[in-house]
Structure formats: C-alpha cells, structure tokens
C-alpha cells in the first residue's frame, strides 16, 4: 500500500492545484492502481510483478503529472505558482529561526494577492478608524496638499500589506507539519506581528503627522492588530484541521 501511495504521490505532488483537488487525484489514482494490481494478481502475477505491471499500465509519471496539470484551471495554477526562491530567502531564514518554515503550504501568489486584497479592505474599512491622524490626513486633508493623500494611502497600504504578508506567511507555516496547531509557535508569531504593527504605527504617525503617537492611539492600533491576529489564529487552526486528510500523503518521502 505504501509503495502504491508513494508512486501516486510522485505523480500528484508536483501538480500546482489546491489541496482538495490534489487529494481527489491521489485517491482516484490510488484506487485505480489497487484495482489494476488486483487484476494482475488475478492473472497469476506475484506481488512485485503485479505492482510493476500496474505502474506501467498507468503510464509515464512525468507525462501524467503534466496531463493532470493541464486539467487544473489556469487561475488556480496562477495563484499557486511558485515565486522565485530569491523572494522567499528571507522567509526561509526567519522561518528557521522560528522553527516553522514549510515552503509551499499556501501558494505564494495566493498570499501575495490575498494580503494585498485584505490590506485594501483594511484601508477602506478599518484603517480610517485606527490611527486618527492618518484618517484626518487622508480624509480632511489636513496637510492641505492633494499629492499627500495619495502618498499617505500608498504608504499605509504598503505597510499593511507587508504586515499581513508576514503574518499570513508565518501563520501558514505554523499550521504545519502537519495537522496540528502549535500554540507556542502562534504566540511567537503573534509577538512578531504585534511588534511589526507597533513599529508601523509609530512610523506612520511620526512620519506623516510629525508627532509621537499617544498611548490610546497605540492601544487602539494594537487592539486591531490583536483582532486580526486572533482571526489569523482561527484560520490557522482551521487550516491545520483541514490538512489532516493530506497528512499521510504529505508525510511520504517521494525522493527516488
């Protein structure tokens, strides 16, 4: 059974598709291989010969991987496409420090787009209420210069995006391996995220409004960060739970 699973995993693992789609591929191919093996045994082949025959009948693994990839909708492939390693190098180092790095848990593009989209939402809904100085500057145009509004929005968006990107990356890593949520890791991540948020807050206020943030402003900002972090942890736990059916597959060593 394990050998069959390893063969299936070699075919399916390189496919860029969402996990539920890949799980379906795995289950169907495994079922097929088992049925083919049974048929070969019925013809009198021994265990090893039946396995080899069933593998051969399935076809060339690399070719099958390509065919399966072609059956995945393009937008799914795009979201889960691998970003260049040089983009992720810092993450690997930071992740190692936290002991949580697991590349490709969630597609890089998904995280890039996802954090961008959430940052836009935050800017539209939450941020105007978070640092009052920024809200004033953006909406009342306290600085009395039309260019400033756009610059401020761009800076705030970039910072929120960065913050979310780091957070999502680390939360995605915290949910593996595999199927268990690690509270201590989440706490370490939480501290990092809150520190980043505090830093961003100070930066925004001191650079844009040119004064130090007050304590209530900091508390307000960190409160929102905590809420986001809580939501992230819930998502992380959900992801860990969802990943359970994939564990036995992901734990397989498929190196030849």
């Amino acid at each position, binding site marked *: 059974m394990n050998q069959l699973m390893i063969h299936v995993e070699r*075919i399916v693992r390189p496919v860029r598709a969402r996990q539920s789609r890949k799980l*379906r*591929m795995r*289950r*169907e*191919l*495994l*079922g*097929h291989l*088992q*049925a*083919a093996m049974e048929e070969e045994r019925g013809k009198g082949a021994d265990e090893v010969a039946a396995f080899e025959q069933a593998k051969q*009948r*399935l*076809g*060339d693994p690399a*070719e*099958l991987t390509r*065919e*399966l990839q*072609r*059956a*995945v*909708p393009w937008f799914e492939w795009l979201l889960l496409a691998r970003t260049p390693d040089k983009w992720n190098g810092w993450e690997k180092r930071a992740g190692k420090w936290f002991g949580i790095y697991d590349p490709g848990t969630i597609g890089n593009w998904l995280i890039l787009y996802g954090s961008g989209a959430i940052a836009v939402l935050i800017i539209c809904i939450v941020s105007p209420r978070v640092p009052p100085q920024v809200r004033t500057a953006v909406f009342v145009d306290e600085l009395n210069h039309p260019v400033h509004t756009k610059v401020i929005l761009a800076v705030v968006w970039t910072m929120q995006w960065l913050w979310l990107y780091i957070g999502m990356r680390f939360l995605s890593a915290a949910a593996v391996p595999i199927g268990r949520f690690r509270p201590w890791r989440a706490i370490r991540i939480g501290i990092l995220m809150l520190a980043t948020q505090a830093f961003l807050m100070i930066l925004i206020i001191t650079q844009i409004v040119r004064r130090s943030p007050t304590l209530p402003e900091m508390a307000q900002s960190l409160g929102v960060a905590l809420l986001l972090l809580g939501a992230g942890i819930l998502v992380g736990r959900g992801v860990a739970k969802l990943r359970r059916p994939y564990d036995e597959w992901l734990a397989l060593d498929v190196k030849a």
Partner: protein
Amino acid sequence: MATINGDALRGHLETLVLSALRRGDAHGFEILRRLEESGSGALKLKEGSLYPALYRLEAAGMIKGKWEDSATSRRGPRRRIYHLCRKGRRRFDEARGEFQQFTSIIGGILGASA
C-alpha cells in the same frame, strides 16, 4: 488485430469516456474496462490519462462525479462514480455526428469503406 494506442486516440478520449458513461454510471477503472471491452482489446490506453480527461469533462459540466458511499463493503479507498449529464449527452451526439462525417470523407478519399 493491430492495437490503437494513446497517441492515436488524442482528441477522442473525452468522447470515448462520454460513450462509456452512456451505458450507466461508473468509476474510472470501470470506464476503462468498458472502453477496452468495446474496442475488443484493440484499444491500448495509458490508463492514467483517463483521469485528466474526466476532470476536464467534469469542469465542462458534461459529467458529474460523486464519491461512493463509504458504507459499501468493498475494501480500499472510496471510488468516485461519474454520471453523464445532459450536456455531456448532447456533446456526445454532436461528436459522433462529426466523427461519422470525418470518417466518411477521409474514408472516401482513402478509398476505404466508412
């Protein structure tokens, strides 16, 4: 009888799958068995390529897959049972018409009976 392999079937696999499903709902392995039976053993498919074809057909809304009931007494992983939808039935009729036309024209040119 000479065998027809996967390369020669390229572009026709989806239609063949639809044809097999016209005989009733089936899982992947059963579809393959039906195809081999209908081809009197002359069809030699790379069995794995059946699944991408099934996924494409399902994405196009021509067939619908459903995991079999876990309460079945059979051992091994659950199988996905495919059902031919109305859209798939229509597509099959179209494809069959197109293929008949193709064989009659090419058969005429080659001097073979269609």
